[in-house]
């Protein structure tokens, strides 16, 4: 009895390996499909632009993000852009300034810091937040979902009930409440958004696990004596991954919006770090007097969310052939 079981398990393991190489071929094909989507191309282009900005921030930005252009310790002052070239041109003289003044493309904020440099450096902080939040949320969500789907019974009940309750709050409201609970700060804001994002991924994983479990080949490999963890690793997880990738790639934009909203409300990152949401939140009343101060980080933030959304759309269209035209 024992011997054939072992040999059959070996066969199962081998077939898992061959399906592994098939999987990497499938991955290549999927990547090609994603890159064939117009929206993915545009999104990727925008994202590359932002990534390059973040990587080469110290080359692109003329000043350090926290430099007081009036000199250290001097009182700060919001200022219009100061562009040497425009000094001679009568039409745009409002933004021109003599060569002995520090040149600022977008003016300075209330602490006389260069807005352009702050927006450029802001990419370093803001860009990784979305992928980090979604990455952690998928990891935790997948674990919860797998436990619920695999164990069933009371652990399933309790976990899914909790997820339901989390989902019955508007996400941002709950995130605000959580940040208040654990204190302000970038990490706490990220943690709060992670917590409100978990239920989606947990539910997806659970339903994928449940539907995979019903599949014949899982029943078969169980009958062949494959261990639970083996089934989980080799059969269930590969099958749950597509919906998670689709949801996750679309979820990045949502996560970015939520983190930015927390920052805007002053619950996220603290001064003096340059982060787009916080920059907008700190100075939003200046929209009437110094609109660039607000519009510059607003433009950067919107571009980033747009890039993630376009990319997410492309990935969804590539992986969900139902919607193909």
């Amino acid at each position, binding site marked *: 009895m024992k011997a054939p079981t072992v040999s059959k398990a070996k066969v199962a393991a081998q077939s898992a390996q061959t399906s592994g190489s098939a999987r990497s071929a499938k991955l290549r094909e999927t990547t090609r499909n994603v890159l064939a989507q117009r929206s993915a191309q545009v999104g990727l282009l925008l994202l590359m632009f932002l990534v390059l900005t973040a990587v080469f921030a110290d080359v692109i930005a003329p000043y350090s993000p926290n430099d007081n252009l009036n000199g250290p310790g001097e009182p700060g002052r919001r200022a219009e852009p100061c562009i040497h070239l425009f000094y001679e041109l009568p039409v745009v003289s409002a933004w021109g300034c003599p060569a002995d003044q520090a040149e600022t493309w977008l003016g300075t904020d209330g602490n006389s810091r260069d807005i352009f440099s702050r927006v450029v450096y802001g990419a370093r902080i803001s860009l990784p937040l979305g992928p980090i939040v979604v990455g952690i949320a998928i990891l935790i969500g997948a674990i919860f979902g797998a436990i619920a789907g695999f164990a069933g019974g009371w652990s399933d009940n309790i976990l899914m009930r909790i997820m339901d309750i989390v989902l*019955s709050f508007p996400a941002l409201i709950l995130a605000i409440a*959580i940040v208040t609970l654990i204190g302000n700060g970038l990490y706490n804001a990220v943690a709060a958004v992670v917590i409100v994002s978990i239920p989606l991924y947990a539910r997806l994983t659970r339903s994928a696990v449940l539907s995979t479990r019903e599949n014949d080949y899982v029943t078969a490999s169980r009958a062949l004596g494959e261990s639970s963890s083996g089934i989980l690793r080799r059969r269930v997880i590969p099958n749950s991954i597509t919906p998670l990738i689709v949801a996750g790639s679309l979820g990045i934009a949502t996560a970015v919006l939520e983190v930015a909203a927390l920052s805007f409300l002053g619950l996220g990152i603290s001064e003096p770090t340059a982060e787009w949401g916080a920059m907008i939140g700190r100075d939003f009343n200046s929209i009437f007097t110094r609109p660039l101060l607000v519009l510059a980080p607003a433009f950067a933030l919107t571009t980033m969310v747009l890039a993630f959304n376009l990319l997410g759309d492309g990935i969804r269209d590539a992986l969900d052939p*139902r919607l193909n035209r």
Partner: protein
Amino acid sequence: MTQYIIRRLLLSIPTLLGIVFIVFVIARLLPGDPCLSALGERATEAICAAFNERFGLNEPLHVQFFLYLGQLARGDLGDSIRYGRPVTEILIERLPTTLELATYALIFASISGVLLGLISALRRNSRTDVTTMFVAILGVSIPIFVLALILQFVFAVALPEVTGNLFGTRIGLPPSGRLSPGLPYETIPQAFGLEDVGGLPRAILDFLSGILTFNFLITFQWRQLADAVQHLILPVIALGTISLAIVARITRSSLLEVLGLDYIRTARAKGVSDRDVLRKHAFRNAMLPVVTIIGLQLGLLLAGAVLTETVFNLTGVGRTMYDSIVGRDYIVVQAFTLIIALIYLTVNLVVDISYAFLDPRIRLK
């Protein structure tokens, strides 16, 4: 049908209890001493002891929870620590602002979203379609507060500036608030001579008066109505745009999917005209997922209200909630979170039931 509604109602009870429990726990775990943050420098030890006594903060947590449940059962949401007033009063004062904003935003988003989605789907792959869908993806990508600020800048700063220079009159929309400052108006009890009414009826009347457009409409205060509408336009657009974009995208993809189904082919084969195929067969089926999505928007709108109210300086639930969190007024936080979750739960219930009306297949199971 009735059976379905009853079952659906019963199912929401455990969720409701869970929400109450979580809200209670979060509020009690808020860091910082409520007494200190409420009373500030006036807080001496003796005063704080009395304060804790009054708000039941000395009892063990589980006792506090049951006290809280009892309170809720009596319709008492507690007294605000900061304002020293019953939360219900604050709620009656501020909920209408948010409700008005969110409702108009939802109406705006649903109607224009469905229309845009329909046009897009019917002219699939045309320039109109591509443009609409790009605008829609831009719409879901622009943060509410960014859009709010841009709208403020364009319609309250740039447009008056430009029209002022060009035509000598400044045309634009008010940047913030609900009414122009100093504009006199009557509440519903004042207009109908019901100022002596008290108790619950009065609370309801005050609540309805708070919904300004409704108040002005039934009391014929046309100038005030026009003013209130002008003030609503920008916040409604700012709040509703994300939802509009989502609704438009879902409507488009849903209609395209339905138009490819067998029963649409059957209807065409029967000789039904294209207009009637769309109206009688495709539309209702395509609306099923759209209804669900519209229902889900309310959560987004209530959360977005915090941001919109902040930018447009409106004292609604969202703004109050934020102020109370910062001010550690946990009674208000607790009550408002509960109310928001309750509204959300109710709307989801309504969506599920209307779904059953639309789709006969749901009613059976």
